[in-house]
């Protein structure tokens, strides 16, 4: 994969800490390609994760499709016409949906604004709780749904808002309305917002080799090992993204410089309390990738940098 250093760095952080990502960019800028390459830098499933994920595929998959313990993380990419039940699970005789089939892996939603609004809103609960409960009059069943959300979208209906060369042809207000299809609460739950800018032709044709997926994967695996050590003995928590508030206080202590930086950012960008927590988690992952025990101001600064949609006023 050539170019896109900024986006690749963000996806590396997402893979390392299990953080949700939204990629925003013009048609052909490589959003879908980036997402499809993501599995190549993901660490393998650990024993406990593998058994749970395999169970879900055993219950929901084609009969006889599971031919052993799954070691690769699932990558699910449902189409945007998917119904709520298809995404979340349920039905007359309940079945796990896409969010559960993506358990311990990636749920990729391409063309995010094209998904029905009610479909997107039902994602909010599993994004927070990491599981989904299907209730019926006589019984209720629970499906695990600990997925990393990777979403991609164009910046506007015509696709060229903020494009370096092309003119955006959208009517006034159209860009803002387009962004408005993604609700604030959903956006709030996405840790990393990245703008994917088209790769210049010169760079595409260049012979300079890009960093291999294996090299990135090695860093991701190392960062996951740090997290596994950190959350040893705590059931159900494997990544920084899954930390609860108590763990957050314990593992994400800031020095005075980084605290001041974060507080300034909070004020300037009018970030929510949830965004604050999420920035801390991302900063923790960035520090883990750097092999640092303490979170430094540079890590916090980079994490704040990935909240671009809170910061910019698209289409206004």
């Amino acid at each position, binding site marked *: 994969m050539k170019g896109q250093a900024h986006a690749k760095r963000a996806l590396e952080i997402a893979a390392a800490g299990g953080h949700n990502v939204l990629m925003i960019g013009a048609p052909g800028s490589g959003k879908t390609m980036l997402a499809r390459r993501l599995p190549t830098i993901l660490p393998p499933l650990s024993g406990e994760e593998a058994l749970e994920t395999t169970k879900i*595929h055993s219950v929901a*998959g084609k009969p*006889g499709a599971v031919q052993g313990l799954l070691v690769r993380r699932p990558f699910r990419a449902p189409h945007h016409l998917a119904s709520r039940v298809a995404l979340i699970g349920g039905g007359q*005789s309940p079945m796990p949906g896409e969010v559960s089939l993506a358990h311990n892996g990636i749920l990729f939603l391409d063309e995010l604004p094209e998904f029905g609004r009610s479909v997107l809103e039902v994602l909010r609960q599993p994004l927070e709780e990491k599981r989904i409960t299907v209730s019926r009059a006589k019984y209720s069943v629970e499906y695990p749904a600990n997925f990393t959300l990777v979403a991609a979208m164009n910046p506007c209906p015509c696709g060229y808002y903020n494009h370096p060369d092309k003119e955006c042809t959208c009517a006034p207000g159209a860009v803002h309305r387009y962004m408005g299809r993604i609700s604030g609460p959903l956006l709030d739950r996405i840790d990393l917002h990245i703008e994917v800018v088209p790769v210049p032709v010169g760079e595409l044709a260049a012979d300079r080799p890009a960093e291999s997926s294996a090299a990135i994967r090695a860093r991701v695996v190392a960062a996951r090992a740090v997290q596994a050590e950190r959350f040893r003995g705590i059931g159900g928590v494997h990544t920084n993204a899954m930390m609860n508030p108590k763990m957050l206080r314990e593992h994400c202590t800031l020095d005075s410089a980084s605290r001041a930086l974060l507080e300034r950012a909070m004020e300037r960008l009018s970030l929510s309390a949830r965004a604050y927590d999420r920035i801390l988690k991302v900063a923790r992952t960035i520090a883990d990738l750097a092999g640092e025990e303490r979170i430094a101001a540079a890590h916090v600064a980079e994490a704040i940098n990935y909240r671009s949609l809170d910061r910019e006023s698209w289409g206004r």
Partner: protein
Amino acid sequence: MFVKVHSGAVVGIDAVPVTVEVDITGGGLGLFLVGLPDSAVKESEQRIRAAFGNSDRRMSGRKIVVNLAPADLRKEGAGFDLPIAVGILAAQSEIRTDLLEGSMLAGELSLDGTVKPVRGVLPLADCARREGLRRIIVPAENAAEAAVVEGIEAIGVRSLREVADYLNGVLTIAPTAAALARTPAGAVFMPRTSPT
């Protein structure tokens, strides 16, 4: 004669034990399936009758009562075909019960007597292990899936005939070994309706 066969029902992503009880007594005719079966389970009578016919077996002309216990749990799908069929054969004294007692069974029957794969075999195998059973007898296509669970033998079978021969000690089937797999169903991509 009265016979019990171990099976299970999937609830969520785990399975709970279900006992298939078969009793063949004197009076009346026909097969009575009780214990909250859904329509796919009720239809199993027709599949089992045809499978018996095509496997050179006869179903008793006496009254056969099949109870799926616990009776308050809804039973879904065709996975009970195999345990019910085996239970009937055992109640007719055509299958020995010594191996059967330590086994869980699951599988759908085809009219010609072959066994077809079912969903949720991994949770069932896990349930069988928790119940302290020695082996799980499943369709051959599901054997690798059942083998994921350690501490229990996964026996893959292809037909009703094979199951009967295996349980009667006429046929030996080696347990399937555990394996690692790639993600079975990767991305689900449908045709696009909007430009990227």
